[in-house]
């Protein structure tokens, strides 16, 4: 059965281990209750940001990144949109969401419709809250900058995958005096968002945001499992670095064998 030999067994091992760790985390939470979460300032600020915008009579602007629905960061952003939308609905604050992809527009409308319904304000939802602007990167940025300059939102959420337009959006929001909460897994845009925004969710914090905001026990358990996976990665890194270094500087065969075995496991 040659198809068996074509499987990346080391990837299966890692994936299985990660899912197993998350399953363990969920079981722990169901048994012992929710874990203590490290305070993430950016997520604690969501309520304050929407509340401040409501008090000032200014809208909330939400940008779910500039990539399509097939990007996992966009999916994560839509999860956060649900929480932000629910708060905006509860406080009666206007929410504006320009998008640069039609599919994201459609998905965003569905998410907000459900948020407003769950918040008991189904009639406050208007489909035009979520609008399509342009697929073009800078065309979209120009439109959003104009929106920020004219509407002067009280809170700006930049959550998702961004490229060069991130600073254009963030700086426009900063100049309008909005409270800005950003979140992305795009490493090369983090410096710009950190410089221009009040709070930034970095990498895994962004993916944990939905669990953090919803406080759903199963998702919190998944976070606990993720921590276990990261602990395992740290152990592998330290042991691996020591193994590779020692195997290179000594002539001990068993060290070289251990190094080769470890490399076989971690390399695709």
């Amino acid at each position, binding site marked *: 059965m040659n198809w068996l030999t074509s499987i990346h067994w080391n990837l299966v091992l890692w994936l299985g281990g990660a899912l197993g760790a998350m399953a363990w985390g969920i079981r722990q939470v169901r048994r012992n209750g929710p874990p203590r979460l490290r305070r993430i300032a950016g997520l604690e600020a969501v309520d304050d940001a929407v509340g401040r915008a409501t008090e000032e009579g200014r809208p909330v602007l939400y940008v779910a990144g500039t990539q399509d629905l097939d990007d996992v960061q966009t999916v994560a952003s839509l999860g956060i949109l649900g929480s932000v939308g629910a708060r905006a609905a509860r406080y009666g604050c206007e929410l504006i969401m320009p998008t640069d992809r039609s599919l994201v527009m459609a998905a965003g409308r569905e998410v907000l419709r459900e948020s407003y319904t769950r918040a008991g304000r189904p009639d406050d939802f208007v489909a035009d809250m979520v609008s399509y602007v342009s697929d073009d990167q800078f065309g979209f940025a120009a439109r959003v900058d104009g929106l920020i300059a004219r509407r002067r939102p009280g809170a700006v959420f930049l959550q998702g995958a961004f490229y060069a337009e991130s600073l254009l959006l963030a700086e426009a929001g900063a100049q309008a005096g909005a409270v800005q909460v950003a979140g992305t897994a795009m490493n*090369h845009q983090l410096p710009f968002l950190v410089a221009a925004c009040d709070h930034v969710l970095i990498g895994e914090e962004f993916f944990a945001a939905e669990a953090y905001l919803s406080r759903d026990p199963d998702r919190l358990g998944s976070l606990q499992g993720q921590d276990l996976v990261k602990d395992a990665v740290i152990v592998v890194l330290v042991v691996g670095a020591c193994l590779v270094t020692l195997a290179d500087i000594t002539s001990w065969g068993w060290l070289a064998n251990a190094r080769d075995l470890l490399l076989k496991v971690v390399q695709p």
Partner: protein
Amino acid sequence: MTDARVSWVERLGLIDRRWLYLVLLISVAVAVVVRPLFPDTPSTFVQPVVDRIERLEPGSPVLISLDYSPAAAPEIEPMAFAMVRHLLMRGAHPVFISLFPEGSAMFQRLHAEVLATDFGDLEAGRHWTNLGYKAGGRMVINALRQDLSAMYHADMDGRPLADLPGLADCSRLGDFSLIVALTSGTPGLKEWILYGGDPTGVPVVGGCTGIGTPEYLAYFPGQLRGLVGGLKGASEYEAALASLFPERAFPRRAGRVMGPQTVAHVVILIFLVLGNVAYLRGRRREGGGGAA
């Protein structure tokens, strides 16, 4: 009693941003007019790209993916032009494709400023080939790994692949001697490393915007054999090309822009210093003042 007066030093930290923009605009404009050219040498990331192209045999097929848009062209084009000039001077056979819709337009500019101008005696199809843009991102790269003709049946002038002498020994990605990915986003260099270079063993070198350089450095030198990062990297490559072929006197576009870039950096640094002096002075005043 607290002295509430704000000194002129502290006011430096409260400058309206439009003054900053004006100073920046004027100083960069002056530098653009003067256009100083500074000496430059390839760094530890750029030199491997130069060396790898230097070692190519004449006629070696090299895949060049033009994955950038007009917005990134000021940064990527100088390195693209320099690398293509280097490849053609060494007799290699560049094969141009793109994973970006704007890539075809970027090729038109490269053709006008490099192929037609500096190498007008070379023929399309024989000395270089343009296969054009294909949608699909990494799916295109996966397909090229199997067979070039899965994606391309002819070049952009309509010549069938089988009739192109430059691609006679090249039926799939693994047959290329080098992959050069010039990137301003996704799909781009990362996809070429993961789906192109790694599975086939074809060495990958890249060019990217300055912002993307730290991200791709994570792959250097293992999966990415060399990286030309931003305008500085392009300037270094142009300097290397000038020292290799001094008789050709190729234009040094990136080198000429290093002057304005230097001026811009210095202006920003001056304002950083002013802002921090003002901030520290204000903090000292607030810490030293007593209650009313």
